[in-house]
């Protein structure tokens, strides 16, 4: 990493920490930054400290983790599929995770443990992802076929989700819908501790593949010539990407477009080499989700608008821009 790139990463890290602190400090009751920091170091007492530790901090951490997971997932996918439009939402992975989680929620009405949700979501994502891959296979996989079949699979899966939603008891519908829109509202430490293992293991693991991704970007022949075991790496990278997207969906629901936008913004900042791109994308994703969550909380007080609404509102125009530019 060059000097400029490492400066970018450092600056982004600072921005992420700053946003997380702001996110902890503001809300229905504003807590002064001084008290926030005191509470974080355990040297404050009273109600504010409770709010910080029990409510605001896990929410900020969840936004940070989920944003980073989705962004890295998208960056890995774009690297493997070599298409700027690739994103976990577009290849049906997110839909698979949704169906799995919603059926799990309806099956064990309220009697489930949060720890299981990411695993269930990952399994669903894996099933949908492999189905798409198999169906798109016709003497090799064309990225566009992957996306188009993904559109179809997503439609079918969302119909299934809605069906589960209306066939279950009414109180569950509101709970499930809340989760589906993509929001870190109401996330607690149990959500953070369910997400953290996946994020902390798989994101660093995926950084190990940056050399292979760089090689793959030059085409299969060059990559093989450079000694990359393409097929094996491709499979492992896809698995990482699907696992990250699945776990993120399990925690925060379908936050559309983060996996698409964050890698593109990161590319603008540090270029296409994956060594710097992956950490930058992770931080960008975290920043986007923290911002979306903050906006949802502050704009229409006392309403808490799901962050997914904002990521969709900014993501869709961005997608159109990409469509306009790249095709």
């Amino acid at each position, binding site marked *: 990493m060059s000097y400029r790139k490492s400066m970018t990463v450092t600056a982004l890290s600072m921005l992420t920490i700053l946003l997380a602190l702001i996110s902890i400090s503001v809300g229905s009751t504003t807590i002064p930054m001084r008290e926030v920091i005191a509470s974080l170091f355990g040297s404050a007492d009273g109600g504010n400290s409770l709010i910080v530790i029990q409510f605001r901090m896990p929410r900020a951490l969840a936004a940070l983790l989920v944003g980073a997971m989705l962004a890295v997932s998208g960056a890995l996918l774009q690297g493997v599929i070599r298409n700027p439009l690739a994103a976990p*939402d577009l290849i049906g992975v997110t839909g698979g995770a949704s169906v799995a989680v919603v059926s799990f929620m309806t099956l064990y009405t309220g009697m489930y443990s949060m720890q299981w949700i990411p695993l269930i979501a990952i399994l669903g994502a894996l099933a949908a992802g492999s189905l798409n891959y198999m169906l798109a296979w016709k003497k090799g996989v064309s990225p*566009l076929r992957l996306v*188009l*079949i993904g559109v179809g699979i997503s*439609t079918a899966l969302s119909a*299934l989700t809605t*069906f589960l939603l209306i066939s279950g008891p009414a109180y569950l519908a509101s709970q499930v819908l809340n989760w589906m829109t993509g929001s870190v509202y109401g996330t607690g430490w149990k959500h953070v501790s369910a997400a953290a293992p996946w994020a902390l293991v798989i994101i660093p693991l995926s950084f190990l593949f940056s050399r292979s991704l760089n090689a793959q970007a030059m085409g299969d022949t060059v990559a093989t010539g450079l000694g990359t075991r393409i097929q094996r790496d491709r499979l492992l990278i896809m698995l990482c990407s699907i696992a990250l997207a699945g776990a993120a969906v399990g925690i925060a629901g379908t936050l559309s477009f983060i996996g698409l936008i964050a890698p593109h913004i990161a590319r603008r900042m540090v270029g296409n080499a994956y060594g710097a791109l992956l950490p930058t994308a992770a931080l960008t994703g975290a920043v986007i989700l923290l911002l979306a969550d903050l906006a949802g909380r502050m704009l229409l007080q006392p309403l808490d608008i799901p962050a997914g609404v904002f990521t969709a509102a900014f993501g*869709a125009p961005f997608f159109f821009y990409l469509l*306009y530019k790249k*095709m």
Partner: protein
Amino acid sequence: MGLFQSQRARLLGLLTGVLLLTGVMLLSILLGLQNFHISMLLHTYQAFDGSTEHMIIRDTRVPRTIVGAVVGAGLAVAGAVMQAITRNPLASPSVFGINSGAVLFIVIGITVLGGGLSMSGMIWLAFAGAAVTALLVFVLGFSGPGGFAPVKLTLAGSAIAAFSASVTSGIILIDKQSLDQALFWMVGSVVNRNMEHVMAMLPYAAAGLVLALLLSRSLNVAALGDEVSKGLGISLFLVRAGACISVVLLAGSGVAVAGPIAFIGMIVPHLCRSLVGQDHRWLIPYCAVAGSLLLVLADLVSRFVIMPKEVPVGVATALIGVPFLIYIVRRKSYVL
């Protein structure tokens, strides 16, 4: 080229279709959780006595069947028109996000106006939503340095669908009261509709259908490509504008009454093309009949899958439609 080559065969095919449709509609009125004899239907309209059976037939089964038939015809014809002017085999109100755009507008209307929203207000909102989305998709599909590309339309449509879906569920979450009412629109279904619904949407659907029929000759030419149509002196702009209006009327009225019902608009034109080929003067009537038939049939079957509950017909068509979409995408002729 289609299966039916001669005019006579096509006419016979169409008549058979109408007969089949009548039969399926009768079955849809008579069969369900409670089965009736056909004489009961006659009694209901000749000597209505207010009994439960008569009430079920008059207020539940008949409106449901008619809504299914009208919406099915509208979506199928809208799909055929869209496929002709975009030259995209995946074009249909659901894949291009027009259905979800209409749903978004309806949900916004319900939230802002609450209970004060009338059925005709709802239909106009659905039109507005369908029109805005259709316009957006077409503008996106035709702009950009790459020029017109069928696949661009599909991608723009799916992004719009994702966008409207997020915003819709966001609004529902904020305004919890509207959850029940809005869930009604989010899943395509023809249950719990009454004659008032039918009457409110029928004029618009009929207008859309007539417009599509009037355009059928121009659609034949437009499908040949821009150069040819210009050479033959057809104003492509007028044809596209007319087609857009017809699609918005058909899809908008359909969504206003039945919610987003996926894939009917994509499947039916393909099936009908295998019967009568590319001639839209035949294709559009065939689509109307086959669309009704498919939707009424899907609704009938979905009553029996998990008795005594029902699978909403929107879910059923989505599950039927996906294998079909995959088949079209995998087919060689789809330009990627």
